[in-house]
């Protein structure tokens, strides 16, 4: 009996399993509901659409998950997503306010380096200057949005119809990044989502880095006493977050085929919502990558399903807000119950 209680309630792992299960159940339920109304919902094409809509959100949310695991937050991801795409476009195609152009590959590298720099700056103000990451990255959000407009002169870029037209090999290489079709009509963009999931799952669950992130987020003071490299890890996580946002921006640009300034929309808030729905605590130290993935699936499915059902986009917004709050509230309640059961079983062991 004790062992059963321990396995069911007592460990972090079991607790996560329970939460994951609940979330998966909710997803299945919603899918069944929408499917019963619209047969097209689970068709191959719509599932592809669904997956595609998860790519940028997922890539950003996985990295944001690590930031939140530390008890920090990165509000600049949406803006960096846009900035990276715009920088790639203006550097490669010209037509913005930059006085020079570059071939595709150096342009991509430049865009990613700018993201690294943004991550370093976020890290600097959080770690060294001691600002709350909320403020530091809020500032970065504005800077990056402003830079997008400044660099692009607020114009839109379309590689395939650009004047002068870039070399054909560059166009096809760029297309392969996100827009190329693999067998069965699967866009290459989806591979990035899979890769990002595997990468972050390993980082979080199978490296010292992820293990220590949990420790740092769970008790920063104890982490300092144990002399964990807190500052270094925070830098790395902010850089990772910015680079993932930039990659997502470039890949979406490749898939869509054109880009304009300030296109990130509600990406930032969706990413935070996905992380939190997935069972993370904004205080840090809690949550898994699978949970985040389920959060991403839930949000993407709600958007897609509600659209299929013909609910207007205004109602969609309201609905998603309600679901986010409800999911986290439920999590808080179950957390309390599980904690109490865990305590009881720990007392029973003595």
């Amino acid at each position: 009996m004790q062992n059963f209680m321990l396995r069911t309630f007592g460990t972090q792992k079991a607790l996560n399993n329970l939460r994951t299960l609940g979330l998966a159940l909710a997803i299945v339920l919603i899918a069944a509901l929408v499917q019963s109304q619209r047969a097209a919902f689970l068709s191959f094409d719509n599932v592809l659409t669904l997956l595609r809509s998860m790519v940028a959100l997922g890539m950003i949310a996985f990295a944001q998950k690590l930031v939140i695991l530390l008890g920090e937050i990165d509000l600049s991801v949406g803006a960096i997503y846009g900035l990276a795409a715009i920088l790639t476009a203006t550097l490669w195609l010209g037509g913005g306010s930059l006085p020079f152009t570059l071939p595709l590959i150096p342009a991509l590298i430049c865009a990613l380096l700018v993201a690294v720099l943004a991550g370093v700056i976020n890290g600097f103000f959080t770690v060294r200057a001691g600002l709350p990451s909320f403020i530091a990255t809020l500032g970065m959000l504005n800077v990056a949005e402003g830079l997008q407009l400044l660099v692009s002169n607020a114009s839109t870029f379309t590689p395939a119809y650009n004047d002068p037209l870039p070399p054909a090999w560059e166009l096809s290489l760029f297309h392969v990044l996100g827009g190329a079709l693999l067998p069965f009509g699967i866009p290459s963009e989806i591979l990035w989502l899979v890769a990002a999931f595997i990468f972050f799952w390993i980082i979080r669950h199978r490296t010292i880095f992820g293990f220590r992130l949990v420790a740092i987020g769970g008790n920063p003071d104890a982490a300092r006493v144990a002399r964990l490299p807190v500052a270094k890890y925070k830098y790395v996580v902010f850089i990772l977050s910015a680079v993932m946002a930039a990659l997502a921006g470039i890949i979406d640009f490749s898939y869509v085929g054109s880009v304009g300034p300030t296109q990130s929309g509600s990406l930032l808030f969706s990413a935070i919502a996905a992380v939190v729905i997935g069972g993370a605590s904004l205080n840090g130290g809690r949550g898994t990558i699978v949970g985040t993935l389920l959060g991403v699936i839930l949000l993407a499915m709600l958007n897609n399903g509600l659209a299929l059902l013909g609910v207007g986009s205004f109602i969609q917004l309201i609905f998603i807000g309600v679901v986010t709050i409800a999911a986290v509230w439920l999590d808080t309640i179950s957390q309390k119950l599980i904690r109490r059961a865990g305590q009881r079983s720990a007392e029973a062991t003595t």
Partner: protein
Amino acid sequence: MTSLVVSDVRKRYGATRALDGLSLAIESGSITGIAGPNGAGKSTLMRMLAGEETADSGDITLTRDGARLDEPWRYVAVVHQEPQVWPNMTVRENLAVGRERSWFGRMEPAKDTATVLASLGIGQYADYQLADLSLAVQQRVEIARAIMCDAEVFLFDEPNSALTENESEALFATMTELTAKGKVVILITHRLNDFVRYCRRVLVLRDGQIRHEITGDVSEARIADELTVGLSVKRVAADAVPAKGAQPDGRHTVALRLENCCDRQKKFEKVSFELATGKVLALSGVEGSGARELAQVIGQFRPANGTIATPNGENVAYLAASRRQTIFHNLSVGENLAARLGYRQLNGAAGLLSPARLSAIGFGGLGRYNVKAQNHMAPITSLSGGNQQKVALGAAIESDPDILVVEEPTRGVDVASKRDIYAMIRSFARTGRAVVLLCTEVPEIFEAADEVVVLAKGAISGRLEITTAGDLPRLADWIAEREVSPLPSP
């Protein structure tokens, strides 16, 4: 054989000399105690040994078997009053943090984890999350971490202040085992009794120096003498405080009655007693006995089941133990004094906040509560701990409660302010109010209270008028007896 030598270490913070040429030498083999009043420099010394602080001048050396070890702080492990561990991780994971064995793969702690956990008697908790475990177990996890780090010096900082009697005995058994393994074990505590029982050598720290060393025959009285040089523990002189025990008209009425009161988390059960006006009642009991929780229930700060009756609708003011919870650091002294008041006291004729009334309260409060501050507009943080406590207490008194509940009224307060605070409490009670104190030290009960109620294991184990106890040692014995084993209440 390990020895720790600190020679002529100095550390200043602004104008205060936290350590003023401190020297000591401690060898392994037995537990060494360090005693000292608040502000003597104990915590600075501890942080310095642990490498969290660097000395302005002086040397700390650690030698093992004659060889000097570099960076001595690497070998120093501190077991904190509040364990520095990870509540969101399991015991096993806690042991692995910072000493993982590979960069990739599952994080497994070192091979000897199971042995270390078993030797500390917490093997069965290996897969529990720390948040689910008691403070005693969490503390053991911190000790386990220290053992696995090959620490040579173990610093125990008030390690048993929150443990039950059995738990703390087990802890001291562990500490003794560590000394047998040739580790340097240092105990810092306010409980003189523990020095007597477990230490053969006690160093007394005062004003940033080791002022005295007691070896061999360690007795509570000798340590107490050294700690309170120039101060003697006696009841507040009769002329300083009005005669106690009676209201002006000599009557006591019931201010609060508890009947079969149970804590919702079962910290105490079926407690019944009455609280009389005009008296100071002290609650006493080790951590976990339910005394603190009972005080919080009386202070209406904690929910409880059962009857809690105030015959005349008496209102209650509650003051928490930690000043972090009682002082508004962003406000001035005067604003702190007015912080508990409502629109009746603070609003002027226009129905708006009246600066004049506010400053009148602050100005009056400084004098009434004998607060040493530049003026009532000074920031509260510019005051000493003792004066801050007077302000916190004053603010509670300003709100004019019928029942005043104070948890640890003189935590972190110097001896002179203690006197003032006891006088404040006594004179407040004398105006016909009921006062409940949660006390952790017997001298405080002796000096401030009229009556003491002792709790053990969630039930009242005794109630006594202080005057019948006679003197301090006898009161201490009486309380200690009842704190350990619950006796049927008389």
